[in-house]
């Protein structure tokens, strides 16, 4: 939707890669990465929630590191690689974290889940076999109001095991 009110506002052209695909877009300096993903690219997996970088529902990976897309400017993502939940599965083959979240019922409403899974991916990329305490600490930035976290911890541990045995 090209906004009437937006037409007079300044824009700047940026290039970035999202889920392996290059994009060149004219963005407003104030535009967040979350708005770019959701409104320009139709990638609605990343969610808007607290809007103040506390809850982690908007977590995406930028060059492999988790960021809160609600407060990360689209402009800051220029020249970078962005991974969203839509880019995690390998075709129809789910990532081990996605499968583990299903197997362990590690979500209920599912609104925090894309951010939670991507944060967990960043954790496992950094620490392939984390302890429960390391997972708890790492996921402090991702709020889940439904599950009480226990099944999430179980899912991340199980995914770590699956991934380790694959690389084994």
């Amino acid at each position: 939707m090209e906004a009437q009110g937006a037409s007079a506002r300044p824009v700047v052209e940026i290039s970035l890669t999202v889920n392996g695909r290059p994009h060149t877009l004219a963005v407003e300096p104030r535009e967040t990465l979350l708005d770019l993903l959701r409104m320009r690219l139709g990638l609605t997996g990343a969610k808007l929630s607290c809007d103040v970088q506390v809850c982690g529902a908007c977590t995406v990976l930028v060059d492999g590191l988790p960021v809160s897309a609600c407060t990360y400017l689209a402009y800051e993502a220029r020249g970078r690689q962005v991974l969203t939940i839509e880019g995690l599965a390998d075709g129809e083959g789910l990532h081990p974290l996605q499968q583990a979240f299903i197997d362990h019922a590690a979500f209920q409403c599912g609104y925090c889940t894309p951010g939670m899974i991507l944060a967990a991916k960043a954790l496992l990329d950094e620490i392939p076999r984390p302890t429960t305490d390391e997972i708890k600490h790492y996921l402090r930035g991702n709020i889940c109001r439904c599950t009480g976290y226990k099944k999430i911890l179980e899912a991340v541990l199980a995914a770590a095991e699956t991934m380790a045995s694959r690389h084994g």
Partner: protein
Amino acid sequence: MTEDRETTLEVVGRPTARVDGTDKVTGRARFVSDVAVPGMLETRILRSPLPHARIRGIDVSRARAVPGVAAVLTGADLDGLDPYYGVAYKDQPLLAIGRVRYEGEPVAAVAASDAVAAEAALERIEVDYDPLPAVTTLDEALAPGAPLVHERLRPAGHFRDLRALRPVEGTNICHHVRRTRGDGARGLQRAEVVVEDVFTFPAVQHVSLESFVSIARWDGDRLTVWSGTQHPFPVRKELSEIFGVPAHRIRVIAPLIGGAFGQKCYAKYEPLAAALARAAGAPVRVWVSVTDAFRTLTRHPARIHMRTGATRDGRLVARVVRAWLDTGAYADVGPRVAGKVAYLSIGPYRWEHLDVEAFAVYTHRVPAGAFRGYGAPQAEWAGESQLNRLAAELGIDPTELRLRNLLGQGEPYDPTDRPIDGDLPALLRAAARGVGWETPPRPGRGRGVAVGVKDGGGAHSVSASLVRLHADGTATVHVGSVEMGQGPRTVMAQITAETLGLPLEGISVQEPDTDLVPYDQGSSASRSTALAGTAVHRAALDVRRQLLEIARRFFEAPPDVVTLAGGAARAGGRIATYAELIAYHFGTPGGELIGRGEFHSGERDPGAPGPTAFWELGAAAAEVEVDAETGAVRVCAYASATDAGRAINPQLCEAQDQGAAVQGLGHTLFEEVRIEGGQVQNAGLIDYRVPLADDLPPTFTAALHQDGGGPGPFGAKGVGEIGIVMPAPAVAGAVAAATGARVRDLPLTPERVWRALRAADGA
């Protein structure tokens, strides 16, 4: 539940992955905030900065001039509508009319081409307020001569139990409930030991990660609303009354919802969205921030004065309760919550004498309404804490004191109501075992217990369902239960699969849409699996009956030799798929079998007294460590036990219990919406602290019991709420056991605990 039945169930009770699983882990799941209606405008709401004021005037001329602005609405622009809504009283205007009654009340709203334009317009609205004296605490609201929040009250007449509203004329009390048995005061006089306390429970916020989202579109005289609502049909009714449009021209759709917990019960922002869409002549989306959700609804803060009397050998004799609930500026479901607090403050024990009374009180604060547990957390924080104190004063183990007095299965909670339908003593023993009750805790640690009880399902409700068996032998379930995380789409598919002998993959569950699913009261009060599930079960049984009849004709066999399984009928070695049976029945490979099922509270057999559909029953035990220097409480172990009646999906039942327990640990340890002078001090997630991953106790277990006593399909009950009831009294009981310090105010902040420790030392 017999062994026999256990082994014949194929889908029910077995590990079954959620039907929405893949969508939710891949980002494909479409939540209400992901719905994009073509041409949809964005909106912003201007809120009152004052708790009580007269609106002298609002100047919106500069706002209307902002490029991209399509509509600016104030309370003066609602001509032609009945602009008040509310489930108990129609007391809440969709925008303030002439007067604001709480800080954060919507005063004006803008629809514009995008959020930036809407925000720019909002900044250009000028409101001239004339501040008025405000009552922002229970004491202020109850003081003689206090300003009245509402001078006139108009009952909404929506629900049977809310027809008998009892406000106190000339006061801010909008409803009160009293129940008695024997003589409470005399009972206390006769008791050998009496404990007396005043407990408080804070305002807490649901913090659904997806906040309120409502999209409205008018097509001529037809209105379509997509909303994150737990109550599509009641919302339709409210819209019908506000806009004067009959039900058949209003369509309410509830896509996936990112958490609700009661917050999204009944109409919230749907009326405003529809009014804005009408004024703008275009679809609009109202998407309220998580921060402004704190200015929309909280749980009822409560003050509960309780006295409990017992004999020296630990027999409970009498309880007298006076409870006050702050329902804020608009009643919402406050009267019903007050009724629940009165009823549940009794507790699941044998009493001779009771006198319990609860009041819902208007104040100039953010409205309070439904939140998981619905009065049970407040009532049982007081009741179970008194049991813990009484145990200490009598020198009786707190589990033992309860076991001597708990109602057993089949004993009446109240002579006029459904008897207790599960094994509370077994739940209590299981929870206590879960933290190692039989061995003493490590030095410096203490343990506490609590039981929980809630009359589940809602008092008077209706659900209907249609199950359609298509020509290819697959099925679609039409039912209004809303998927907000609790899993009804999975459970309804399981019930249908089990009943029809179909694989789960052969079943779809229709998204709730008032044009496409039959009436359902709503997804609240833990009612979906047990009550809406009964409607689904009956609809599936109706299809099953038709299938058997067709199969009997097809096979020319007596009905009792026909079996249905795996999508096919079998008789005497012959087999016919459902598709073949449908083609045979209609004489063409088309058509479908339609099953119809209904549940309504009025149908219950005359032998079943009282309004309670089923009892949610639970127990929990906690072990804590308290830092004597700082008062910080660490929950080292937490164990709960819940009766699911019959778990259709054990993994999801367990998940409900775990989630509820951690949410309850939130209001136990740190959650509180602080309101000072009527101003919310900590709206939003920077200042309001909810449980995080590392708040999960190191030992944390949830045991599912299946006592088979539920009224739902296969003996199911609802399990959504009970887990949030026990954490506060169990943890506070553990703190007292560890330190001798008794805290009567939640949350158990380090400061409060530290002060209580000092008081206990001094005593």
